[in-house]
């Protein structure tokens, strides 16, 4: 048996798992309309490849991956595309994003997707297939799995960890999935193991899920490769990728590096199951298990087609009970308030909690930080949350970075234990998004600077070229003369030209310009006399005095 390690801090919030983990995963009736967001994963949104009026089949690609970190989006049922438009998404911003709206035709006709021989095909082909089957991490971060499954230059990644901790209160979708589909999870792990070249496969499950542990252990026996199913102590956030890695291997991911740099890759159990379904059963990712719990009539887990309005999911659970005060998407510690109940379920949505003031009392008033250090004791990333809080509050972002803000996993332990009820994580999220925006701005500024400098250079060059052209034009004659020297025809022409010019010059010399026409004979005589005198002085050596003063000339 593998020796388990520990991570710093952690908390024990009330679990609230029993509400929703008793009933098996149910399915939702086919809805008349699905709104499928094109941006359901981390990275670049998929590009719509259908137009309003197109007929689509279940599992047909409606959004193609664009860029390296991206994945495809598929139609959840057969029907007609009625619009490709902006719709409100289940996102903390409550902002709209581009969605494909599909009016279902009720047939639910599947688009044939042949199973893939993942064992025989080259690595690159399998990864391309994973990318086009829309697989992304279902633990919540929705990072495209094809990117994570690429072992890249490393050659192989020795350890594969499957994350079945599900440490956040209220959420039970992975618990139910492991109980009911343990075989699929293990089959998915086999594919991941093959692609990564992993030797060790570890599955971490919190010990508050004995049924899931039993089911997974049973499935692992028939896996055909070594899988270790490990019960980790129930302690939030044991399901954080870095925390689970530390629990199972004792290794910490260094700041600024990825877990692959220390030879470990972590996937959610749901991702493994969806990978198996996609590659072996030919079912692209068009649905996921979602927990609906809290203040609803029948809390439970549902296999929900992506694009289902959250409202429909709440109704499937018997509807919100009277006194409900909003919904949380995700868990109570890391989730966010839902702005619009019509927002669709996306790949990232693992849980909907309908709130009630008794279950989620409004936060007590915030008091000043008393520097008690509780947050630092609770922080699983071993940060100094109070320091980060001060710097983020003062918008001293450089300082927050120096205190390793980006190692924060936003688990909310610090806010949970804070005796002053300071929403610490909100400050870290604010600081992180400000820093990201600033980095983006400085990249844009760098491009603008380069473009401006190039423009200056171009204007300068154009000016110089113009000046050179003008100079060449001005010096055109000698330049053409030099060129003519070796061309006999041009030389002949030039000789003629030269002769003509000389003749003209001689003729010019011969003619004395005299603007003296039609004069009286007396005036004419006077002029001639003056001319004669001038000729005379020119011929003789001029007297030294006379040269200086024309007045003295006789």
């Amino acid at each position: 048996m593998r020796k388990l390690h520990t991570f710093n801090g952690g908390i024990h919030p009330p679990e609230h798992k029993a509400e929703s983990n008793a009933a098996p995963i149910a399915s939702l009736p086919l809805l008349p309309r699905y709104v499928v967001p094109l941006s359901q994963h981390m990275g670049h949104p998929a590009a719509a490849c259908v137009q309003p009026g197109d007929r689509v089949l279940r599992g047909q690609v409606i959004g193609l991956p664009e860029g390296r970190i991206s994945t495809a989006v598929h139609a959840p049922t057969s029907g007609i595309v009625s619009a490709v438009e902006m719709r409100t998404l289940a996102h903390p911003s409550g902002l709209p994003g581009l969605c494909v709206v599909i009016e279902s035709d009720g047939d639910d006709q599947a688009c044939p997707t042949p199973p893939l021989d993942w064992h025989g095909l080259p690595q690159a082909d399998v990864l391309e297939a994973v990318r086009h089957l829309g697989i992304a991490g279902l633990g919540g971060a929705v990072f495209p799995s094809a990117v994570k499954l690429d072992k890249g230059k490393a050659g192989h990644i020795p350890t594969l960890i499957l994350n079945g901790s599900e440490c956040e209160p209220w959420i039970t979708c992975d618990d139910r999935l492991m109980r009911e589909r343990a075989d699929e999870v293990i089959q998915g792990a086999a594919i991941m193991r093959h692609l990564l070249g992993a030797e060790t496969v570890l599955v971490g499950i919190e010990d508050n899920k004995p049924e899931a542990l039993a089911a997974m252990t049973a499935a692992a026996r028939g896996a055909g490769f070594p899988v270790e199913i490990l019960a980790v102590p129930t302690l939030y956030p044991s399901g954080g990728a870095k925390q689970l890695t530390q629990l199972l291997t004792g290794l910490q991911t260094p700041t600024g590096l990825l877990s692959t740099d220390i030879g470990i890759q972590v996937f959610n159990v749901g991702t493994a199951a969806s990978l198996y379904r996609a590659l072996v059963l030919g079912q692209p990712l068009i649905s996921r298990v979602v927990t609906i719990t809290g203040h609803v009539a029948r809390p439970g887990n549902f296999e929900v087609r992506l694009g289902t309005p959250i409202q429909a999911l709440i109704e499937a659970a018997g509807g919100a009970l009277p006194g409900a005060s909003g919904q949380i998407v995700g868990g109570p510690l890391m989730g966010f308030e839902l702005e619009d109940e019509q927002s669709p379920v996306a790949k990232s949505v693992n849980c909907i909690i309908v709130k009630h003031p008794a279950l989620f009392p409004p936060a007590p008033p915030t008091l000043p930080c008393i520097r008690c250090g509780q947050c630092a004791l609770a922080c699983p990333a071993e940060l100094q949350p109070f320091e980060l809080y001060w710097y983020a509050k003062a918008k001293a972002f450089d300082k927050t970075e120096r205190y390793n803000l980006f190692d924060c996993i936003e688990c909310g332990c610090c806010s949970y234990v804070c005796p002053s009820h300071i929403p610490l994580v909100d400050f870290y999220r604010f600081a992180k998004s400000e820093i990201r925006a600033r980095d983006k701005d400085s990249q844009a500024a760098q491009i603008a600077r380069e473009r401006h400098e190039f423009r200056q250079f171009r204007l300068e060059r154009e000016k110089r070229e113009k000046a050179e052209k003008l100079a060449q034009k001005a010096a055109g004659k000698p330049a053409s003369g030099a060129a003519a020297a070796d061309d006999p025809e041009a030389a002949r022409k030039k000789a003629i030209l030269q002769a003509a010019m000389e003749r003209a010059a001689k003729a010019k010399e011969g003619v004395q310009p005299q603007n003296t026409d039609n004069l009286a004979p007396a005036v004419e005589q006077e002029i001639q006399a003056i001319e004669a005198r001038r000729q005379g002085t020119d011929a003789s050596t001029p007297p030294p005095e006379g040269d200086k003063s024309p007045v003295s000339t006789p």
Partner: protein
Amino acid sequence: MLTAILVLAGIGLVLGAVLGWAADYYKVEEDPVVEKIDAILPQTQCGQCGYPGCRPYAEAIAKGEADINRCPPGGEDGIQRLAELLGVEAKPLGEGLEPKLKSVAVIDESTCIGCTLCIQACPVDAIVGASKQLHTIVADQCTGCELCLAPCPVDCIAMEVIPARLDNWKWRYPVIRLKQAA
């Protein structure tokens, strides 16, 4: 006594020679402060500071000719960072300058006559078009400097504020309740 003077004078001469050589050998061609200031400036090249671009403004700040609060696109954050870099007090944006929301220029294509005047005005070559051909602005490269607005003879360019989208959305500064609401 004499030995001590000679020894000290010798040490002084040797060190002086080393320093003189180092000053020459490690000479910095350009003023590094200008580079650092220029790196903080937003590179809109808008000229609102009164200088013909970001770099001239950076040079003026480095020489002490210009104040650090003359750059509206840089905003409060920019002034703060300049103040930190130069070790001076941050101050509010200078008189007559107003912070504006980030915008891009948009050409009304039905009005554009293709005169190319805006192309000549754009400091970052973000406008494409040719004489008597429709012009358009490459939004990704537009810095929002507004320099193209004035030269347009038909006033067909307008500034549009960049709306909040999923890809540029930011978490708000947390508003915390200090007292129990009545």
